[in-house]
C-alpha cells in the first residue's frame, strides 16, 4: 500500500527526514513512533500529498506522490493533529461537504455521512454546530471526515492528542473498529494506544528510521524479549527465588518481603516467562496474588531506540 524509498525532506538547510525507507502492506495497522521533532508529521504530510519530498520516492497504492497527488488524495483519509474543522458548520453539513470534496456521489453522500457518524458515535451530534462541541467530539468529527469516503489508507496524526483518559479509551475503541477495512498509519505519543492498536511499529529518530517490526520482534532484537516481571505471593516462601532463577531464560530473580506479609519477586528474563512462573508457583502451592510486567515493554524499547538509535532492527 505504501512504499517509501530513500525519502529526504529538507526545510532550508535543516533535514527533517533523511533516507527514510519502509513499506506498509494493505490492511496493516502500523504505529509511527518518535520524539517531538523526529520527522513523523513531515512524513505523514508527504504521504498525504500535503508536502513534496526533496528527494526519494513515495508510492501510495502504486502511485507516485509527486506525479499523481490528486489521485492519491482520493484514496486517503487524513487526520492531522489539529482536526480540520469549520466551527460554524453543523456536524452533518461538514461531513457531507468532506464527502463531496472526496468525490462521493451526491446520491450516496447522506448514507456515507450516517455510516461515518455511526462508526464514530456521532449520530446524536448530527445537527450540532461544531464550534459548540467539546474537544473529544471535535476529535471524533475529525476522524469521521477521514473515513467518510471509505479511503483505502488512513493517516492519523496524534488522534488522541489532548483527550482525557476516558476519551483516549473511546478513541482507542474507535481505532480498533477501523481494523480490517483500511490500511492505517497512526502516529501517537501514547505508547499504550500504539501497543494495543498496531500490528507493527516504525520508530523514527532525527528523521531516520531506527527500528521497525512488531513489538515482540523489536524486543527480541534488543534483548528485551521478556523484560521484567513482578510476582506477589502470600507469606515468605523459602527458596522460591532460587527456583525461579533456574527457569529457562530467566537471568535474575530476587524477592523482598513486605509489611503486608507478602513477598514480591522481581524477575528479569530474555523471553515472556509468565506462564512458566505461574506453573512453578502453582506447583509449589503458593498463593499467587499478582503476576504482571513491571514496566511497559514498548516504553523500554522506545527509550532504547531513541536514546541508542543503532540498536534496532531495520
Amino acid at each position, binding site marked *: 500500500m505504501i512504499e517509501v524509498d530513500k525519502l529526504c525532506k529538507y*526545510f532550508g538547510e535543516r533535514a527533517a527526514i533523511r533516507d527514510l525507507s519502509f513499506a506498509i502492506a494493505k490492511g496493516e495497522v502500523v504505529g509511527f513512533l518518535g520524539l517531538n521533532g523526529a520527522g513523523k508529521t513531515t512524513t505523514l504530510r508527504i504521504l*498525504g*500529498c*500535503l*508536502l*513534496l519530498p526533496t528527494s526519494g520516492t513515495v508510492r501510495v497504492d502504486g502511485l507516485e506522490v509527486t506525479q499523481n497527488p*490528486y*489521485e492519491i*488524495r*482520493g484514496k*486517503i483519509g*487524513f487526520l*492531522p493533529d*489539529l*482536526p*480540520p*474543522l*469549520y*466551527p*460554524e*458548520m453543523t456536524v452533518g453539513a461538514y461531513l457531507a*461537504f*468532506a464527502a*463531496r*470534496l*472526496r*468525490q462521493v456521489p*451526491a446520491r450516496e453522500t447522506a448514507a456515507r455521512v450516517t455510516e461515518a457518524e455511526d462508526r464514530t458515535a456521532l449520530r446524536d451530534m448530527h445537527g450540532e454546530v461544531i464550534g459548540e462541541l467539546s474537544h473529544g467530539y471535535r476529535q471524533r468529527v475529525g476522524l469521521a*471526515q477521514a473515513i467518510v469516503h471509505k479511503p483505502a489508507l488512513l493517516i492519523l496524526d496524534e488522534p488522541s492528542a489532548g483527550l482525557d483518559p476516558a476519551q483516549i479509551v473511546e478513541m482507542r475503541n474507535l481505532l480498533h473498529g477501523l481494523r480490517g477495512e483500511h490500511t492505517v498509519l497512526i502516529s501517537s505519543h501514547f505508547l499504550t494506544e500504539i501497543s494495543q492498536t498496531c500490528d507493527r511499529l516504525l520508530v523514527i529518530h532525527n528523521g531516520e528510521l531506527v527500528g521497525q517490526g512488531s513489538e515482540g520482534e523489536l524486543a527480541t532484537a534488543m534483548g528485551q524479549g521478556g523484560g521484567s516481571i513482578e510476582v506477589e505471593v502470600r507469606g515468605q516462601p523459602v527458596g522460591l527465588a532460587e527456583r525461579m532463577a533456574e527457569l529457562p531464560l530467566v537471568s535474575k530473580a530476587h524477592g523482598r518481603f513486605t509489611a503486608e506479609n507478602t513477598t514480591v519477586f522481581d524477575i528479569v528474563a530474555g523471553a515472556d516467562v509468565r506462564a512458566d512462573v505461574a506453573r512453578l508457583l502453582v506447583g509449589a502451592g503458593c498463593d499467587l496474588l499478582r503476576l504482571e510486567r513491571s514496566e511497559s515493554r514498548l516504553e523500554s524499547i522506545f527509550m532504547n531506540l531513541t536514546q541508542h538509535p543503532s540498536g534496532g532492527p531495520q
Partner: protein
Amino acid sequence: MTATWLIARRELSAYLRTMSGYVIAAVVLFVDGILFNVRAMGSQQDRLSTEVLSEFFFNSSGLTMAAAVFLSMRLLAEERQNGSMVLLASSPVREREIVLGKFFSAFIFLTLMTLAGVFMPMLILVNGKLSFGHVAVGYLGLLLLGSAALAIGTLGSTLARSQLLAAIISGSLVVCLIVVWMVGTVTERPLNDVFFALALWGRHFPPFQAGILNLRDVVYYLAVTYFALFVSIRVLEARRWR
C-alpha cells in the same frame, strides 16, 4: 457539482452564518447611504441627475474596494489560522479550484451587497430623470473594480498567516495600485502612460462613473483579476514545497 462550486457554496454559507459578512455589508450600506444623502443628493445647488449618479458611483467605488479587502481577508488566511486548510489540501482538489471557489464566494457576496444599494440611484426618479444605461454601466464598473480588489485580497489572504496581516497586505496593494496614478501625474511620458495604465482607479473607473463603457477599462479589470488569481494559485501550489 465541481469542487470549485462546492467550495464557493460553503464559503458563501460561512459569510451568511457568521457575523463578519453582515457587519461588512451593514457598514458599507450605511456609509454609502450617508454619503449619498449628504454629498450626492444633499447639495445646496441644483444638480443634473447624471452628476448625482456620478457622485454616487464615486463614493461607492471607494467603499467597494474597502469591502473587497475586508471580505477577502478571511478566504485562505482563516483556513491556515484554523488548520482547516488541511481538509482541502488533503482532498482531491486542485489549487485553482480552491482559489476560484473562494474568490467566487466573495464575489457573489460582494455582488449581493452592491446590488442591495440599488435603491439609492432609483431615488433620483423622485425628483428627476434617470439614465438606466448610466446606472447599468456604473454598477458594471463597481463589480469589475470589486472583482479586481477581491482578487488582490485573495492574493493577500494566500500570502498571510492571519486575517489581520491579510487585510494589511491586500489594503497596501490596493492603495499602491491607486496612488500609482498620482505618480503618473508627476512623471514624464512615456513612463507616466505606464503608471496611468496600471492605476486601479484613476484612469479606469471614471469612465464607468460617467456612464461610459470602454472595452479598455473592462479588459484592465479582468486582467488584474486574472493576474492576481493566477499568482494566488501559484503561491498555494508552491506551499507544498514548504
